């Protein structure tokens, strides 16, 4: 069962990721990313993390990707992106290095974990009382401080949105200054 689900979803996962890369249209790319996020969510479930499964779908695939799509629409950048590569050798090198990265990780995993190693039993004990509850126990005891830190992170994110996105359009005087700056930077 476990194995079957994995082998069904793993190709989908990879395929959706590849498809995302090949889409000229940003909206389509985003949709493929959503697919990918779903597949990963499934793996979460398989790995005994139903809470993360839910979070993944609700927050990630839901909220975050919607935000993405929203921005894409807002900016009107859903035009087709030219996939012609300007930088010589970029694509080839990217693929070579990507493959190399996979090879390196695979090698390390083979040596460090072993290809055939299965997950040990007893995860149910860890998830005692339900995954969400167990997770909460760990999160709010052992990891409560990092949890607090994330609040600061979110505040910063909020400020960022305030500063950058809610910025009034530059006033004419500033435009001039900008022009000058631009020239200076070029020079």
């Amino acid at each position, binding site marked *: 069962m*476990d194995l079957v689900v994995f082998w069904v979803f793993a190709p989908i996962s990879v395929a959706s990721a590849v498809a995302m890369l090949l889409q000229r249209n940003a909206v389509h790319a985003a949709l493929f990313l959503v697919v990918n996020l779903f597949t990963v969510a499934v793996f979460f479930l398989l790995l005994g993390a139903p809470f993360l499964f839910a979070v*993944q779908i609700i927050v990630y695939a839901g909220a975050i990707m919607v935000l993405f799509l929203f921005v894409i629409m*807002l900016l009107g950048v859903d035009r087709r992106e030219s996939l012609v590569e300007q930088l010589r050798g970029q694509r080839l090198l990217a693929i070579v290095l990507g493959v190399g990265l996979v090879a390196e*990780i695979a090698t390390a995993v083979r040596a460090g974990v072993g290809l055939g190693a299965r997950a040990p039993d007893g995860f149910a004990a860890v998830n005692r009382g339900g995954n969400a509850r167990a997770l909460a126990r760990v999160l709010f005891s052992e990891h409560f401080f990092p949890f607090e830190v994330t609040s600061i992170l979110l505040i910063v994110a*909020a400020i960022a949105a305030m500063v950058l996105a809610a910025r009034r359009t530059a006033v004419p005087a500033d435009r001039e200054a900008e022009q000058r700056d631009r020239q200076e930077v070029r020079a």
Partner: protein
Amino acid sequence: MRTPIAAYLILSGILFALGTVGVLVRRNALVIFMSVELQLNAVNLSLVAFSRMHNDLTGQVLAFFSMVVAAAEVVVGLAIIVSVFRLRQSADVDQARVLRG
């Protein structure tokens, strides 16, 4: 029959590498950013897999934090991209070349 942990890990590696390649080959800042999200997601997968392997929830907690971080990053990133777009009317990163040398 459980799936070997290594399979998840290697899958995670493949997804991570794909995200990496995406960053390198795409020109739209938003898509590049999506590729980064893909990377983070791949890492989350391996975190959860390790969590399973160790019979320990730290990995899941970490993945949880990672998602929070991703969310915050998305906010900041999108804000930055939007602000650049306003100045330049383009999300093509190849055009952002005022600074170089």
